[in-house]
């Protein structure tokens, strides 16, 4: 499957130690922000790269590919799930003692 105009694929997973969301960047490192993610124009290339990086299980857990689109400089996931992974939970959690930490 090839990408249409602006769409692409991103490799993501969970950092094994922290459990946090991470994206594969163009240096082959795992970045915690989406804007640093490497993009692949077709899923086969992405799958091939995925096969290489998934072996480093002490660093990354359950990596996979998801589709996204480039809107100018901005990379946006297509699914709600991936948007939430990128941005964090959408709920406002205000605690009575004033702490709002998620």
């Amino acid at each position, binding site marked *: 499957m090839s990408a249409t105009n602006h769409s692409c694929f991103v490799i993501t997973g*969970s950092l*094994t*130690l*922290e*459990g*946090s*969301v991470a994206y594969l960047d163009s240096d082959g490192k795992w970045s915690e922000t989406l804007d640093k993610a490497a993009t692949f124009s077709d899923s086969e290339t992405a799958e091939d790269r995925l096969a290489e990086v998934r072996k480093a*299980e*002490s660093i990354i*857990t*359950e990596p996979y590919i998801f589709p996204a689109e480039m809107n100018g400089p901005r990379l946006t996931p*297509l*699914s*709600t*799930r991936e948007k*939430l*992974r990128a941005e*964090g*939970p*959408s*709920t*406002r*959690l*205000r*605690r*009575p*003692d004033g*702490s709002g*930490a*998620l």
Partner: protein
Amino acid sequence: MYKYSEYDSTLVRERAQQFRDQVSRRLSGELTEDEFKPLRLQNGLYLQLHAYMLRVAIPYGLLAAQQMRKLAHIARTYDRGYGHFTTRQNIQFNWPELEQVPTILDELAEVEMHAIQTSGNCIRNTTTDHLAGVARDELADPRPYCEMVRQWSTFHPEFAFLPRKFKIAFTGSADSDRAAIRLHDIGIQLVENEDGELGFRVFVGGGMGRTPKVGKLVREFLPRQHLISYLEAILRVYNQLGRRDNIYKARIKILVDALGVPEFSALVEKEWEEIRESSLQVTDAEVERMQAFFAPPAYETLPDSDAAVAGMQAEDTPLGQWARNNVVPHKQSGYSAVVLSLKSYASPSGDLSDKQMEAVADLSEQYGFGEIIVTHTQDLVLPDVRSDALEALFTALVDLDIATPNHNRLTDLICCPGLDFCNLANARSIPVAQEIRQRFDDIDYLDDLGEMSLKISGCINACGHHHVGTIGILGIDKRGEEAYQLMLGGSAGHDASLGKVLGQAFSREEIVPALEKALKTYVKLRESPEETFIETFRRLGDKPFREGVYGA
């Protein structure tokens, strides 16, 4: 409550050590993630959307004050300052890091707690009535039997790799089932036979999820001494015959349906024959030993407080409202049980900050005997409050924002973590719950709507128990967009029934207005304000509600 013996302490310490070793073998590569996953799940460690999630066991929902303080410490030290109480009477921490989890388990072991078998295809936490031991309608306290089942099921060598998860629940009351036993893989009701002997009614094959089912009665009366051997027989039949080819067809409910109750129960009885007289028998001495752990606390001799409480409840004040809804009659004269609503307007259902946990621990000692119960509806209970201290307690709870007087009202809604947190979800649930709480915040209106349970799940796995809500909301994925189904008519009690989907799913913007229309329809059609939503629905069926919500 149950006090750990040297055995129990050794077991949880060794378990924590075993997990420490497993983590280290995972990080060294000796265990692949594929091999590590079932091992970490058996210690309640999930990998969710944003982080690991650790589910800590709270056996039958009973916590001692010092345990609550330890949970607060863990929330503060290893997490982001809060925990989430679940629909199986457990607690979840949403942000632990992998290498810290063994230390968390060590800390839990210090206060006789653990995360054993809170996930994975094994026997999970045995749950019960949140009023066990204090309810007036209780035949007998089910907790000694819950503790027996806990011990029997923990690290049971034969049943660690079942076809799927397995959940057992007990109730000790005949009139009302506050433990939803008919929605469990095995549901057990304490009963008495004509000779006054205590035994059990056993239901098998209840559950929610993709194929919700109400449990079937498999044994009308099981004599007390056979509790464990009978359960062992059921589990052995399930372990051998449960489907392993399809995870959506692997629960025991599917097996019971496929075989039919007569054949299923015949297989169980056949196996049971072989083990009935074995060392699995529960002796009278064992029952007494267990019951001693749950003996009533040192209640003071107090005059009856029913009239005084009724007087408080008649007041048209915040205290009065709270007393009407959140204060429950207690079997001991002069005492009440109090529901602490973790359903305030700002926080997700079931969440509590570390500071709130510390305060609740203190309150449990000041206004009770240092025990706190976690309900299966994302609330807490202080089980032994002197009725003459209710007003003082109320003031303290208001300061902590856990005094919302909405127990069994619309906004006492159960809500799973949903797509904001959970890997399995299709849609967000917490924002829907928050919108509902903000929209329906008039207590008088909620009281007028009366008794109801609203339950929200973010996916078909039904952790929010949406099938058995008076009103259930199920989040789905409709062509890549979040959408919500509305269902009516569920119930989790002795009159258990599964809700029916009303019609087409709603968008995120439409679901709360749709809910409002369903409520308006009820108010319009009820015979009197005393007729509850579920009664009206059962009387009239879903057609008038469909018309009210979707238009004729």
